[in-house]
């Protein structure tokens, strides 16, 4: 029996064997499987399945696109991802479906599942890496570095990280010292019967802050939570922020402000509604600088002319921003 695989954690095996004796025999099989699937040994993975939209963007930004074997349904950008096999929703993965793509690396975030499926993939000898995901600039850097480590692309990562910092710095500089921070309310799925508003610890919250705004619900809620219309009124936002798709499905500005509570907020009275490409706003990936610049333009904290410099400094990835307006 070959046992020279660094990736077969012995403590894991011992634990499984205790739980269920048959696992022992299966592991014997699986240890034999390992070398076949990890044939390139120390080399970088060549067939990657990415189970998160931001991770997919990062792989693209690190020039790893040709190594992607599949992505999940939340991977919508860049548009090329459409041609890749889709492994389904990230919380309802299929073990054999994933294995059928013969990956040598599966990238997941901590909300991927179900846990049994991830375990089966690990058992089948496929490296599965959970990439920590925090909606902060530091978190994004850490995420990019983690992916870069796995891909052997640390130099590219440094470039991407620098590009993000630079873009953010330029936006910040162009905004200057805006004493007046517009109070923004971000609504997700407005009108679907499952209205959600963004609180702190969300991608939207960070993007709003970086763009010179203030999330009106930053102190009130954590994550995305349902919001009553009266609470929306009480929060008194000066700007209402929605995704493009949500805005269109509602039927435009008049339909949105037909909601009497929203219509009576300062934002409603002034008709200050900002609409943004959802994946750009929420993905929290290499295009963060783009997202911040675009929102800042929408909020008026950044004059339109400043945008070009911000975009030019991001490489080709950012140039393909498909957002409107």
């Amino acid at each position, binding site marked *: 029996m070959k046992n020279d695989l660094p990736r077969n954690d012995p403590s894991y095996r011992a634990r499984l064997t205790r739980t269920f004796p048959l*696992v022992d025999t299966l592991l014997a099989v*699986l240890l034999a*499987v390992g070398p076949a699937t990890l044939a390139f040994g120390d080399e970088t993975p060549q067939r990657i399945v990415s189970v998160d939209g931001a991770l997919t963007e990062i792989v693209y930004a690190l020039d790893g696109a040709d190594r992607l074997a599949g992505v999940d349904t939340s991977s919508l950008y860049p548009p090329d991802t459409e041609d890749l096999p889709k492994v389904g929703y990230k919380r309802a993965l299929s073990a054999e*479906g994933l294995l059928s793509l013969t990956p040598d690396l599966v990238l997941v975030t901590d909300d991927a599942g179900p846990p049994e*499926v991830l375990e089966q993939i690990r058992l*089948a000898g496929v490296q599965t890496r959970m990439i920590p995901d925090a909606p902060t600039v530091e978190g994004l850097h850490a995420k990019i570095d983690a992916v870069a480590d796995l891909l052997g692309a640390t130099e590219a990562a440094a470039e991407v990280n620098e590009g993000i910092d630079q873009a953010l710095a330029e936006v910040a500089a162009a905004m200057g010292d805006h004493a007046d921070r517009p109070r923004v309310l971000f609504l997700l799925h407005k009108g679907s019967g499952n209205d959600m508003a963004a609180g702190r610890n969300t991608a939207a919250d960070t993007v709003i802050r970086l763009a010179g705004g203030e999330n009106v619900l930053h102190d009130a809620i954590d994550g995305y939570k349902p919001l009553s219309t009266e609470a929306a009124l009480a929060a008194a936002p000066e700007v209402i922020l929605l995704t493009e798709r949500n805005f269109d499905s509602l039927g435009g500005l008049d339909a949105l402000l037909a909601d009497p509570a929203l219509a009576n907020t300062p934002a409603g009275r002034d008709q200050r509604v900002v609409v943004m490409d959802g994946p750009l706003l929420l993905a929290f990936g290499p295009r963060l600088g783009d997202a911040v610049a675009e929102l800042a333009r929408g909020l008026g904290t950044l004059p339109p002319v400043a945008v070009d410099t911000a975009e030019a400094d991001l490489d080709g990835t950012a140039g393909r921003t498909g957002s409107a307006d």
Partner: protein
Amino acid sequence: MLALVSLVLIVALLSIAIGPVTIPPADVLRALGGLAGLPAGEIAPQHEAVILSIRLPRTVLGLLVGAGLAVAGAAMQGLFRNPLADPSLIGVSAGAALAAVSVIVLGASGLAGVTAFLGPFSLPIAAFAGGLVTTLLVYRLASSEGRTSVTTLLLAGIAINALCGAGTGLLTYLADDQQLRTLTFWSMGSLGGATWPAVGSAALMIALPLLALPLLARTLNALLLGEAEAGHLGIAVQQMQRIIVALAALAVGAAVAVSGIIGFVGLVVPHLLRLALGPDHGFLLPGSALLGGALLLLADLLARTLVTPAELPIGILTALLGGPFFLALLLRWRRTAL
């Protein structure tokens, strides 16, 4: 009955042989042969792993869950003397759902202690316990002075189902976007969690009802005449009702715990067999176990292969497969019976 046994064997073989990873039939046979102690011969190791640690446990789980749900359904239809009854009437599914949704939504906050203690098994354990506790509650509410009538059981079940539904609704309302998707998927069922430990624990729970309920065929037949009449025929009605409810709750609770809510099997499989073979529980109970297992495996086979490399929720396919077949049989039966 022989036809049903062959059906199960064929579907089980298909379920082991077919999947997103293409494996030559010879390898399938070698892997199975190796399991039976035959000289295994040369086989691609990854193929062997897919068969032995993914497809085989999943096939066994599918048979167990399908059989358990269908037998429990047949027993409930007998107990309630209503061909449209299903195990959800005694609150087991609603209770399991409430517990599962609680873990999904509150797992990181209000129930953090519980989920930290139980780890990845929080959801199945909570669902199983929730189902049994709710059933017990329904039964207690329906009993007075040691007697339980099926009618009060039904009414208590409706009330508790409504309460559990309200709780589940409240939690759904509180859920964030990802939790919402998770619980939606959970409520459509999946056999994706079929690891050997999961199969082992489900087998422990489901085996008892699967073996014991068919032994109660005469009792269930007698109960169809009415509770008083069953008593006149020498059946210890109260005691038997308790046993039947407990066995059905055990089967459904364990099934829901490992595979989420899979509707339709418990309702339609026994009904279908009754139309084809008549209502005698002597045939109906073992027949339901076999057909339930076969139907669920077939649904799972499609769930795994239709949209590869992704997977469809199995609840969609059980309904899609069983529905038209059931309708056709119903129409034919209506023509001949009237």
